[in-house]
């Protein structure tokens, strides 16, 4: 038994090392003075300073943030309403089944197919209006489409775990429908909606394929920029911007964990939300 335990520990630590070694090497060489190759020539922050002089990178960072924020806000509103509507009304079995299928579609097919499908509909809509030319608007629409499904699934699972007694009690005390929604359902649902919004936001930041298929010349995001730059060759400057993004990810994961720990006094909620997707 002891032997098994030490084998498990060894494999686990190696696996974690395998996940982190490339990232650590990338961060390490982003401080290297040498511009070419991988021989250590001394510590420098030069590559980080130069990032702020690079107009293309600043623009890409702004696009990434605008895309993530706008798509998250819209998809959270539409997705939460969809979840409440699906869960709180007596739909027939058939309606419910087809609604559910619609939500699971973006989860069950590879994102490249969704991207291809949206490219085609925009190609057709372009004949109607030039606002459907490749660009930020198309990317926002594409992101909202898969985000809605994920937000609705998260909020729905939260709704299913709430019990309806409080709402019934409020009803018995002659509270109006709107009052119940505003003062009872939504506050109880806030952690679920927040988790859904957080997921939507990270999915947008993580996305490459949808953006890549829909990006115009002026709507480059950071992942698209890095992807393109890496094709031309790897440089310490790309290490630096990637390391910054990695750092932001680390901070947000830890912050998200802390936040939910404090709010819910249940250390596991946040990890459970991650895990149950």
């Amino acid at each position: 038994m002891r032997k098994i335990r030490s084998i498990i520990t060894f494999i686990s630590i190696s696996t974690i090392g395998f996940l982190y070694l490339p990232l650590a090497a990338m961060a390490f060489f982003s401080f290297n003075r040498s511009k070419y190759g991988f021989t250590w020539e001394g510590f420098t922050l030069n590559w980080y300073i130069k990032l702020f002089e690079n107009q293309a990178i600043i623009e890409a960072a702004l696009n990434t943030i605008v895309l993530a924020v706008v798509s998250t806000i819209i998809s959270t509103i539409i997705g939460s309403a969809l979840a409440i509507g699906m869960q709180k009304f007596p739909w027939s079995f058939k309606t419910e089944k087809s609604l559910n299928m619609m939500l699971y579609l973006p989860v069950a097919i590879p994102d490249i197919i969704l991207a291809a499908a949206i490219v085609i509909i925009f190609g057709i809509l372009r004949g109607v209006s030039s606002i459907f030319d490749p660009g930020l608007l198309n990317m926002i629409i594409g992101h909202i489409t898969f985000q809605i499904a994920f937000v609705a699934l998260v909020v729905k699972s939260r709704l299913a775990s709430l019990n309806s007694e409080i709402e019934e009690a409020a009803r018995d005390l002659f509270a109006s429908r709107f009052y119940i929604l505003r003062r009872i359902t939504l506050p109880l649902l806030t952690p679920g909606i927040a988790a859904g919004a957080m997921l939507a936001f990270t999915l947008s930041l993580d996305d490459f394929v949808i953006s890549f298929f829909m990006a115009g010349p002026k709507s480059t995001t950071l992942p698209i920029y890095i992807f393109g730059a890496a094709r031309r060759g790897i440089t310490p400057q790309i290490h630096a911007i990637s390391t910054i993004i990695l750092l932001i990810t680390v901070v947000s994961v830890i912050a998200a964990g802390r936040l939910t720990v404090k709010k819910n006094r249940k250390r596991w909620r946040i990890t459970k939300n991650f895990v149950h997707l």
Partner: protein
Amino acid sequence: MSKIIVWYGEIISEKSLLKRGVAFIAPGILWLMLFLIIPSVLLAIASFAGRGEYGELVWEFGFENYKRLAGFSLFGWTGDYLIILWRSLITAFFITLLSVILSYPLAFFIASRSPKKRYIWLTILIIPFWTNMVIRTYAWFIILAPDLPFAKLAAFLKLIPNGSPLYPGAFAVYLGMISIFLPFVALPLYSSVEKLNWELVEAARDLYASKTRIFMQAILPQTLPGLSIGIILTFVPAIGTFVTPDMLGGAKYMLVGNLIANQFGASRDWAFGAAISMGLSLLTLGSLYFYTVKAKKK
């Protein structure tokens, strides 16, 4: 006359209740109809369309694209596209399998820590999970670079010429893809392992079950829910993946995702791209169906 029902303490006719429900779901349904369902139908239709002068769609229908996908062309038959589809399926299968094999020890390792340490280990596992795929693939360029020990070792063993990196190629694609998809299996699997009923394992041991048997009959069935989610979460994106094979595989290890991206990018042949997408959807849904049927039998 519509039926009168009691709904969350309210007496209301079913009809007016559903009317209110429609108001909630209408924006979402409209959106998904417009940008998910209709585009998917159009994709299916476009796969039968033709290619215009600039690669745009021409609405003349035929089976040309599917014939081409099956390998028939003016110059006779080649299996190139079918090989790429088959390779994608096999790659997704092995990536999923290897991720599962590595995830089991990891899930048990984390679950056996004290609650506080467990939280730290989970955070460590979630960070790569939430890091952008392009960045995580990019990081492999550095670790596999010619000046670093791994490439030097491979050169010393005469596996690669001296001074060249360990990419592009199948090896680099596998490394990159496993590192990306492993947390997709490990996290759901952990949520099942955490809830494991150890009494069953103890009972199996008391009855002198072998180690393999303990795993197969006392542990595996209990972790099946998390494992299933993990397998689907890995297999579906892995079979259509495009970033990692493009960056780390190049022309040497082409997968169906790259083929589709090419049709919408450099090659500009949307109709053929739509046909390959249909092939990929069929492959994915077919595999999921096969998997659920198999899982149900067990």
